[in-house]
């Protein structure tokens, strides 16, 4: 995925679907992303264990989060972003709103 696409892009919340090796473990992974300037907190939840890799959901919140820096750190950890499951940007954090379909 072209990281350059996110050059200078900031967000308040990112929810990412990641594929990562077992090592570095989830704690190290969460800590590395939490150390990025602007990141207030990180949550990593294990979604699935496979033979050589793990599928995890990572939630990052901050003010503001430099998306490119998050991607760089994730790549340095040896993990890969499968998909961006949620992104919240702008002056304030907006939760998804309920619709009749929900």
């Amino acid at each position: 995925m072209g990281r350059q696409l996110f050059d200078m892009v900031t967000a308040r919340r990112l929810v990412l679907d990641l594929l990562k090796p077992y090592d570095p473990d989830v704690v190290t992974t969460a800590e590395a992303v939490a150390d990025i300037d602007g990141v207030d907190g990180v949550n990593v939840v294990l979604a699935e264990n496979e033979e050589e890799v793990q599928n995890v959901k990572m939630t990052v919140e901050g003010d503001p989060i430099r998306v490119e820096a998050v991607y760089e750190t994730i790549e340095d950890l040896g993990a890969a972003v499968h998909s961006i499951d949620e992104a919240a940007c702008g002056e304030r954090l907006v939760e998804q709103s309920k619709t009749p379909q929900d």
Partner: protein
Amino acid sequence: MRSPLRRLVRALEREDVRSISRRYFISNGFDGALTSIGVTVGAYLSGIPDGLTVFSIGIGAAIGLGTSGVWSVWEIERAEKRAERARIEHAMLTDLADTRVQRQQAGARQVNALMSGIGPIIGVVLPMVPFLAEGTLLSMRAATLISIGVAVGILFAFGAYLATISEQSWLVAGARMGLAGVLVAVLNFLLPG
């Protein structure tokens, strides 16, 4: 860019790295201690007249075994860790070169190789030290016996150390390892040549 020293320290903090390093250290240290007994008893029986010559022979053995320990493990771990990384890369469909995974593996390989080289150096050099006192404080016979004692002591320490990490009796485990040194000394005295 992390300094090489910091990378080594970080690698040493990892239990899997310590576990593999321990095996190489003890295994090659065992080789070194038994080799030193062979060298000292052989030197004594072949009538080498001065301790310094025996010490020099021992240092030669230490250099050989130490180099062997570092070199072989460097190559073994390079292959093993590349294979491990290839499996992960295959599962992830991505290149892990120049990532933390690759740097951690490099640090682990360096620690493994270092410990593999230190083991035999300790195992050979310490038993050779009594020969430095030959001619002043010790006779050749006394230096040889003390040298064997030091080597058996090192083997005992290896056994006792292994016992502390595996909840065995340190006395029994140490004695079991030390026995190998006594056996090698006896065999060297008994067997012709």
